[in-house]
């Protein structure tokens, strides 16, 4: 998208033969994928296929046990400094929002910039308010998360993640817990973010969103990538039987 000239940092995420087990259960079975700076990638696939586990290994909410993950030139090892460095560069939005219920909306957003980036309170609040404007709810700044609708909470969660000025944003089914009438307000924010050039990996079944902004779609099933293609090709010419079945299931309703 924005960064067409080749340079060594163009691949912002590199996964090489990534394996993970939960006990004896082989959740990730050698995932290989690279993601370019500014790319918007949608990950879809049947439930239980390992999509969440996969994107959670990228910011170390889950530890992978074999293979390499390199984010923006830093390799994810058990070195805590690397882990924190990478977690600072990656924002994440969860299905169940996970806002901090004891903190006001604005404090949810400014917490990490203040404590981790060491910005001054004034600066953090200024940037925080700008972000709340961007996601369309500046008037909710002094409320607590529990007083907001699901859609509003998810938009706060996006603002909270953006406040650390991450280079990459991960979304794990950000609209699955929302009432239908609130899905659009969240997707609108994500579309705007995608158009602004953010590198995004989005686990979602919102194919409208995928068609609108995704550069690439990854179909994930049984612990690995089954098929990946540009958005148009993915919908027009799915190659694998499992992909076709999945598409027929989600596109019919």
């Amino acid at each position, binding site marked *: 998208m924005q960064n067409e000239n080749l340079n060594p940092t163009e691949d912002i995420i590199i996964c090489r033969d990534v394996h993970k087990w939960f006990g004896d259960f082989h959740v990730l079975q050698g995932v290989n994928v690279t993601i370019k700076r500014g790319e918007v990638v949608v990950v879809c696939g049947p439930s239980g296929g390992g999509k969440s586990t996969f994107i959670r290994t990228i910011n170390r909410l889950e530890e992978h046990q074999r293979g390499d993950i390199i984010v923006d030139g830093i390799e994810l090892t058990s070195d805590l400094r690397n882990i*924190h460095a990478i*977690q600072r560069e990656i924002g994440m939005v969860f299905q169940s929002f996970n806002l901090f219920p004891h903190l006001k909306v604005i404090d949810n957003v400014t917490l990490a910039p203040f404590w*981790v980036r060491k910005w001054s309170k004034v600066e953090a609040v200024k940037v925080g308010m700008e972000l709340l404007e961007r996601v369309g709810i500046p008037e909710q700044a002094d409320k607590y998360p529990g007083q907001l609708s699901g859609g509003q909470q998810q938009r706060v969660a996006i603002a909270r993640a953006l406040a650390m000025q991450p280079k990459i944003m991960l979304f794990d089914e950000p609209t699955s817990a929302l009432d239908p009438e609130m899905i659009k307000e969240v997707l609108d924010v994500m579309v705007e973010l995608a158009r602004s050039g953010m590198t995004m990996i989005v686990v979602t079944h919102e194919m409208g969103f995928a068609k609108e902004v995704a550069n690439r779609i990854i179909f994930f099933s049984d612990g690995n990538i089954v098929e990946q293609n540009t958005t148009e090709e993915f919908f027009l010419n799915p190659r694998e039987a499992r992909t076709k079945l999945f598409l027929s299931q989600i596109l019919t309703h």
Partner: protein
Amino acid sequence: MAVQSETMKPPRSEVGLLGWLKKNLFSTWYNVLLTIFSAAFIYIVLRAVITWVVRDARWAVVTTNLRVFMIGRYPRDEAGRVLVSLGIIVLMTALTWVFRKAKGKPRRWLVIGWLLSFPLITILLRGFSRESPFLPLVSEDIWSGLLLTLVLAIVGILASFPLGVLLALGRRSKLPIIKVLCTMYIETIRGVPLISVLFMSQLMLPLFLPPEIRLGTVMRALTGMALFSAAYTAENVRGGLASIPIGQYEAARAVGLNEALVMGLIVLPQALRAVIPAIVGQFISLFKDTTLVVIVGLLDLLGIAKAVTAQKEFIGLHKEAYAFTAVIFFICCFTMSYTSRRLEQRLGVGER
């Protein structure tokens, strides 16, 4: 609809004093019976109590010994120091109440004020050395009465709380040694009665500590109480920690917080808030348990009541002395539980 509900009045029988009485006390025949029985019971008890309090009781045992009840053997000439300490606490409490909604600067000053007032009061009460012309030493081992009860309770609470939180965190630690040690400590303490912990702290502490450190009876009792209470606080806090969903840890790590900040900013504030009622309950029982120090020879409020009624002129006046003690205990404990309820409301426990 709206217009109707504005103009329609509730039925006559539902409003006013008579309406309330009918609805709540005389609605059915068994409710009527219950009301009559209760009223008779309350009347009999109250009449007996009031008759005793105003007519039969001989309060001289309390009024003559008021100073003894309050500060026990604390020297009469130095009693002003206790009053000044009390003044400091009253002042700080009043300031805290006045600025309870304030943020930022005033709040920081309040915290600093409280932090300073504790060492200040310690110096005031205890003094310097025996020879010092200014604030001569009043060893804590002769403090007694309500003063001793309050010191034991307040210091016990203040010391056991952070220790309890650390133990709770230790019990959840990923490091096996720390986990095992904390678990063993908590379970051992919870398996023995406070009396034995108090005895043990009197006998064992001197063995563990280097000979240069000589703790008096009160300090040893305090250590015992704090160590005892910490184990219970730890279990309460552990309950709070367990109630925090994993999503909170994940979100906190995902925004880049390190382990200490995840705990300090996200997990502990929520966990402690959730267990305020349990912890205050724990502190109330600690407060009442201070009466057990009698068995290691200290004279707390209850001990004083016993000692006072052993005086020749007041022999046989146990009822008055103990009733007075009970009232003081009730006031203190009620204040604690009332404050905790207000605190819960303000912090919005259970709102979510």
